[in-house]
């Protein structure tokens, strides 16, 4: 048989053993650890079971003690042993007795005894006091106050873990003490550690749930103290009466032997003795205080009592601290999101506000990435999937589950696409701001493996014999990694609750903003209607008197008794003024209509339009010579009536303000830009002082007297209004006596 074959075979056997380990009935091992002696008695004090090493006690062979009366065997030990034993009635409750001194062969050996009732049996266990740490009760109680004092000082759970580990190490003298915490899926994490320098650190090490299988956890829950005094020693078989068999239930026993798989695990860690104290939170096994020692180590009964006490104190403080930390977390979260909501309601830019708080948002929710998808915009901060991936995720979110808050700690199991970014964003917490617009705020948590700091023991070689390679922390770590691949830390209840509140806050702000907008638009509509009614009324009522003035003045002109030159001049001035006033009213009305009517966009060929308008304005400038330089212009999308009016105003201005030039020149050109067309009308007319550029576009703003240049002072205001209603901008350039240029843009 080759070595390889042998290895294969042993590997197979080993695999079988591991598989059986999960099913192994570890509470009925049929053996005890060899540092103690066990008796099981029936209600008549008859020894029904005894460990084979029972001869060590009084020199009587174990087989002779089997079936004998315990009262008879321990005659003379009434006071310290038999009497207290007779009072034990409670099932499953371990009672420590006083030290029993047993004389054998002229010497006296001290034993600590403990007993409990279980399944119709009274189980009595003896351990030699010799070599035990913390033998006297005084030692123990002297150590306790310091522990209690330090407990009071622990401000956070991590303080508590660390401190407890240190204290347990100090009290028991174990080489390494770990605080081992189960998560909700029974995976374990080392959250606190105290160790001798030559022991490798297991801090932050993770173990898969299978490392402490269900039946082992059950025993830890029932029997809170567990000592493996010497993993290197052979266990001792328990003999039983033929009528009883070997199935003595050792659930509560302190000497219960250890599963071979566990022994191997300890050996692989370089550990000979181990002790654990179960930490319970209510009925649930929270975790373990786990102690390791390089060499064999026995722990006295008193020390166990103290450790059990430590465990209970730890558990109490843990509950208080955890409640406090949940409270603190809630408060921190609340004050965090309150600040965000407050500033949101004060500012108009939502996404901007949220993003400004992105660091805080990530810190609050212990996330590494943050994203806001709102109004079609998508902004990312920290460690996140790509924008496309986030958008796709949001699409999928909008059709799943809880419409308000979505959480997962394994994105790839929820969305197949999640596989791609699982490493950086296994955990997703998302709140929906608007279902209609698919607006979300999202937090991302990386795969938990990515954030675990434990690197294993760098000093120890990783490679071991194949059969045992699985039974070591590094293998546990690897196995744990497999079980949590694609998973992030779960989102806590307070976090989910906080996002729900944050969501409410944001939605409130959004709704309020929408209401404000709605009431604004109602207000706007009302004032628009009023303006319409007003201008309608003005157009009828204000025109009439001007019409009458003009008409009657004309009639007056025809009267035969008014023939003097002066009278005629007066009358024609009246007519001219009334006409001018009428025109003003007309342009003002046109201007107000320009702001009200809706745009009727069509495709407009600017070449045609400019040509038509040019011919039109030239009708009022008959006899003038003007050189027109018109570029080939594009086609734009605009309201043809409005745009015509704007162009008309610009060209009429150019014609008007070049009227004093013999060599008048008017240029019309354009430029194509990224998102807009830029047009300009340039002339070499009287120009203007740039200091008044702003005034030019205002209603009734004139830079020249009416005598000099006719006009209502509304033309450019109209141009600006028309262009801005098309989404464009207007500005002018001028130099006195050199000329002027007017620019406007139209979006493409």
């Amino acid at each position, binding site marked *: 048989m080759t070595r390889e074959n042998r290895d294969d075979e042993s590997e197979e056997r080993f695999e079988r053993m591991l598989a059986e380990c999960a099913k192994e009935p570890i509470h009925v091992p049929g053996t005890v650890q060899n540092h103690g002696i066990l008796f099981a008695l029936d209600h008549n004090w008859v020894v029904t079971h005894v460990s084979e090493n029972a001869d060590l006690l009084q020199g009587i062979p174990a087989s002779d003690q089997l079936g004998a009366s315990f009262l008879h065997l321990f005659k003379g030990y009434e006071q310290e042993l038999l009497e207290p034993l007779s009072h034990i009635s409670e099932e499953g409750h371990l009672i420590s007795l006083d030290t029993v001194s047993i004389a054998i062969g002229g010497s006296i050996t001290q034993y600590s005894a403990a007993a409990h009732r279980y399944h119709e049996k009274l189980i009595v266990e003896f351990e030699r006091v010799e070599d035990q740490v913390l033998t006297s009760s005084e030692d123990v109680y002297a150590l306790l106050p310091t522990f209690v004092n330090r407990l009071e000082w622990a401000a956070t759970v991590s303080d508590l873990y660390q401190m407890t580990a240190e204290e347990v190490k100090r009290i028991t003298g174990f080489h390494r003490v770990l605080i081992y915490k189960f998560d909700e899926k029974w995976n374990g994490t080392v959250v606190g550690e105290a160790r001798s320098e030559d022991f490798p650190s297991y801090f932050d090490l993770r173990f898969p749930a299978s490392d402490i299988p269900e039946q082992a956890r059950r025993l830890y829950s029932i029997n809170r103290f567990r000592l493996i005094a010497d993993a290197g020693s052979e266990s001792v078989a328990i003999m039983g009466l033929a009528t009883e068999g070997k199935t003595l239930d050792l659930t509560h026993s302190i000497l219960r032997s250890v599963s071979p798989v566990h022994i191997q695990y300890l050996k692989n860690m370089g550990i000979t003795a181990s002790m654990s104290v179960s930490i319970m939170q209510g009925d649930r096994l929270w975790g373990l205080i786990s102690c390791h020692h390089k060499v064999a180590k026995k722990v006295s009964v008193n020390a166990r009592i103290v450790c059990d006490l430590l465990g209970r104190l730890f558990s109490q403080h843990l509950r208080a601290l955890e409640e406090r930390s949940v409270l603190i977390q809630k408060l921190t979260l609340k004050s965090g999101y309150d600040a965000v909501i407050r500033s949101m309601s004060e500012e108009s830019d939502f996404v901007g506000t949220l993003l400004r708080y992105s660091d805080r948002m990530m810190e609050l929710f212990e996330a590494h990435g943050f994203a806001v998808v709102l109004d079609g915009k998508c902004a990312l901060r920290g460690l996140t999937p790509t924008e496309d991936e986030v958008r796709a995720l949001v699409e999928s979110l909008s059709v799943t589950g809880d419409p308000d808050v979505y959480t997962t700690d394994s994105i790839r199991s929820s969305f197949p696409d999640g596989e791609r970014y699982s490493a950086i964003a296994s955990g997703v917490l998302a709140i929906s701001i608007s279902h209609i617009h698919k607006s979300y705020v999202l937090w991302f948590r990386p795969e938990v493996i990515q954030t675990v700091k434990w690197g294993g023991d760098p000093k120890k070689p990783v490679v071991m014999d194949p059969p045992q390679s699985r039974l070591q922390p590094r293998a546990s770590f690897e196995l744990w990694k497999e079980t949590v691949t694609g998973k992030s830390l779960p989102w806590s209840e307070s976090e989910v609750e906080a996002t729900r509140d944050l969501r409410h806050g944001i939605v409130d702000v959004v709704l309020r903003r929408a209401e404000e907008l709605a009431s604004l638009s109602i207000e706007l509509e009302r004032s628009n209607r009023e303006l319409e009614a007003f201008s309608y009324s003005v157009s*009828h*009522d204000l*025109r*009439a008197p001007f019409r009458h003035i*003009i*008409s*009657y003045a004309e009639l007056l002109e025809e009267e035969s008794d008014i023939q003097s030159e002066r009278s005629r001049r007066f009358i024609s001035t009246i007519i001219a003024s009334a*006409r001018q006033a009428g025109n003003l009213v007309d342009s003002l009305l046109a201007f107000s209509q320009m702001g009200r009517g809706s745009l009727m966009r069509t495709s407009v060929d600017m070449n045609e339009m400019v040509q038509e308008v040019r011919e039109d304005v030239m009708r009022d400038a008959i006899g003038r010579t003007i050189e027109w330089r018109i570029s080939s212009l594009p086609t734009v999308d605009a309201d043809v009536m409005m745009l015509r009016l704007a162009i008309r105003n610009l060209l009429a201005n150019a014609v008007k303000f070049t009227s004093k030039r013999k060599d008048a020149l008017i240029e019309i050109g354009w430029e194509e830009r990224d998102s807009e067309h830029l047009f300009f009308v340039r002339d070499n007319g009287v120009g203007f002082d740039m200091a008044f550029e702003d005034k030019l576009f205002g209603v009734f703003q004139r830079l020249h007297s009416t005598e000099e240049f006719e006009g209502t002072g509304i033309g450019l205001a109209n141009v600006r209004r028309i262009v801005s209603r098309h989404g464009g901008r207007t500005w002018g350039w001028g130099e006195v006596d050199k000329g002027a240029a007017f620019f406007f843009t139209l979006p493409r």
Partner: protein
Amino acid sequence: MKEVRPILLVEDSQNDRELMLLALRKNRILNEVIVLRDGEEALLYLGRAGQWIGRPMTKPALVLLDLKLPKVDGMQILEALRSNVAFSEIRVVILSSSGEQVDRDRGDRLGASSYVVKPSSFQELVREISTWKVFEELVFEE
């Protein structure tokens, strides 16, 4: 000789009434002009009620209808005219102070024959009326 039917002028502004009468005369239009000062009076006339009880059944040649009238406005009168078989065929010219598109559209819808923005000078008004020579119901003095 054909029957000369009257022109109905519905106009609340005294100035506009006077100017219209002058302009009609200047165009030598011979038709009688019945002046109605507001919408209510116009309705009474059409219904031969009030002071118009027992008026002859003659149909007017033309209705000159101001839009903005107190109580009953021009559009309502137009509506009443068009819904009465006796008047449904009569030419109705709307006279309006403004060229508001909404008014034009409404006038068209209700069956106005034409829509005239009141000219801003008397001479223009005279010119406007001179174009009515094509209306055969009107009689211009040769």
